[in-house]
């Protein structure tokens, strides 16, 4: 316990030597200890590329992944979000329920994965100069080279890049699912049966299973959470249905500097 502080200082110093941009851009904590402890710097790196995928049938739609991304975006500043996709089926009111104001989104439709990736890179290059808080792309294929370019561009811009892996068929999913990429983290988010609310029939409090499959400089983690609320926060389930509904949240501002 006594050398915990110097160790943390050393770690951040090493990180700053290795990846100066990430250290400068700051991190976004989830407010869920299991996740924040697993991530280097105690939160999601802002100047970095993050991969999010769905599970099972949702690999095609990435609905849970989109909701999870919306929660993250809700807590990254207030700038515009460039959302590049091939099939424009995002629904504003649904995103708003997870905290992301639809008015912040600029949708970019492209015909092919490589055009989506190109648009993402252009967005990162314009970065904060264009008032962007983050860029989001929905692609099936994320080649290593393209991923590395995005990661570098995100570092340089200090803008977060989220890539939702959206596969059109089981075959494509099987081929791509395990392939390594240059992203800083890889997440898998899937819908889980909701927890019944006492005295109310039907669907209760919906949940996600959030898995941090891969994390550079961190370690894998997984937990079940209640879906992002209208402020973009996820929280651990209250456990029992008769507990108070509201879980404690971090009182401080959502952004914390690393190092």
């Amino acid at each position, binding site marked *: 316990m006594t050398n915990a502080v110097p160790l943390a200082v050393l770690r951040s110093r090493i990180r700053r030597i290795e990846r100066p941009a990430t250290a400068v851009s700051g991190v976004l904590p989830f407010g869920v200890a299991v996740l924040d402890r697993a991530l280097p710097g105690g939160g999601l790196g802002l100047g970095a590329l993050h991969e999010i995928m769905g599970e*099972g049938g949702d690999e095609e739609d990435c609905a849970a992944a989109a909701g999870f991304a*919306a929660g993250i975006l809700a807590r990254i500043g207030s700038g515009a979000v460039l959302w590049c996709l091939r099939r424009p089926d995002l*629904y*504003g009111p649904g995103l708003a*329920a997870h905290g992301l104001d639809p*008015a912040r989104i600029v949708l970019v439709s492209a015909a092919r994965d490589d055009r989506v990736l190109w648009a993402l890179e252009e967005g990162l290059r314009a970065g904060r100069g264009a*008032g962007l808080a983050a860029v989001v792309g929905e692609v099936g294929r994320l080649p290593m080279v393209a991923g590395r370019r995005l990661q570098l561009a995100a570092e340089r811009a200090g803008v977060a890049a989220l890539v939702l892996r959206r596969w059109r068929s089981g075959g494509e999913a099987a081929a791509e699912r395990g392939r390594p990429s240059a992203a800083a983290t890889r997440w898998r988010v899937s819908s889980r049966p909701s927890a019944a609310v006492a005295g109310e029939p039907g*669907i209760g409090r919906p949940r996600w299973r959030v898995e941090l499959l891969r994390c550079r400089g961190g370690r894998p983690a997984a937990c079940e959470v209640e879906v992002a609320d209208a402020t973009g926060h996820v929280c651990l389930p209250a456990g029992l249905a008769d507990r108070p509904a509201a879980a404690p949240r971090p009182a401080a501002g959502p952004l914390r500097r690393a190092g």
Partner: protein
Amino acid sequence: MTAEAGRLLLAAVDAAAAAMGLAPGMPLADALSFVPGLATRPAEPESDRAALARLAEWCGRYSPWTAPDGAAGVKLEITGCAHLWGGEAALAADLSRRLARQGIAHRIAVADTLGAAWALAHFAAAEGAPALPAKIREAVAPLPVEALRLDPATAAGLRRVGLKRVGELFPMPRAALARRFGETVARRLDQLDGAAPEPLSPLGTAPTRRVRLSFAEPIADPASLAAAAERLAGDLVPWLAREGVGARRLDLGFHRVDGRVEHIRLGTARPSRDPAHLAKLLTARLDTVDPGLGVEDMILAAYAVEPLGPEQVEIRPQAGGGDLAPLADRLAAGLEPDALAVLRARESHLPERASATAPFGEGAPSAAAENAAKPPRPVRLFRPPEPIEAFWLLPDDPPFRFAWRRRRHLVAQADGPERVAEEWWQPGQDMHRAGLHHEGAIRDYYRVEDEEGRRFWLFRSGLPGHEAPPRWYVHGVFA
């Protein structure tokens, strides 16, 4: 050669065939008896029309107002354009020379009215010798009455009473002519000498501003084309500045030596007259242009302009707020002009109307979204809704099982129904395309959760008890 009423007729003949006495409209059997071994091809009116439209577009190098005319003509409004070529005669000579080089047989007439130009081009001008009459009436008087653009029956009617020449009609009272032969004859006569107006309907919308660059030698290499595009952008900007406007839509035409015209068309997120910005947008798209054997003219036109004050011209990303417009233009230029969109909330009960995409940059404010009172909405909405195979017990129940995209789902939990009635005062769009039956103007929405925990937004179209059984659709998925 074309088929008509079961006979094969000649549709068109070339010069050699015409010299042997063949003419369009002649039956093929007759033609073959005149010229045994005549080479024939089936007529292709479609591609002829397309070629004529291309030719009209190519003529855009002389004037912004061009349009195909009939089956074989092109009309040009050259008012205010001729001085650029050193006069009408020089313009006509240049046009004639270039057409001849492309191997296009042609007759050209320049006149004060469309009617006169048409008459002279069809009945007076000779190949390679443009007709430029000083006095229209004298020039058209000896022409046959067909030169008035009359239908064959009217022309035949005139001939029957001995009126064979246009000049013979001039002294006759217009009212009598109209009574005897129809309004057309009188109107055509008036249009001939300009007494009645005849506007030219051009190929597209006329541009607000255009600038042109011609090259002594055709150019084809990308660097020269890029340099030319930059220069044109620089030439266009002073025009825009003088009028206090910025361009919203641009069209850069590349007139190739083979007579084809290639285009770069793009829009800007907001009015712009920054030459560097416009040049960057244009050059970014150069790789989509095939210069062929070379480009001899480039024309840059601004089609839509909007007021732009002098202080707004400088488009540079500022430190704090940030400006999306340059990025938006770059993305639109690299993808499709309509690739960018925003999500706009509207007052509507119909889910697909309550939030829809709108083109980026058209800054109408979106209606205030008050989602707090609304029941949960999905993060993804399918347009159109996808039909599913559903099984249910009671008429008002949600399905207990359904199949969607070759996958079976057992419903564990469900919420609903939420009834949505089609807005009968709005014309239906999505729903009818999806093949939803119209008496099913009522939809009952259910939020269901399957055994794995995935949540779907289903609806039943049509009322239970109706003669057509209700149908089920999945409209969206929840996160």
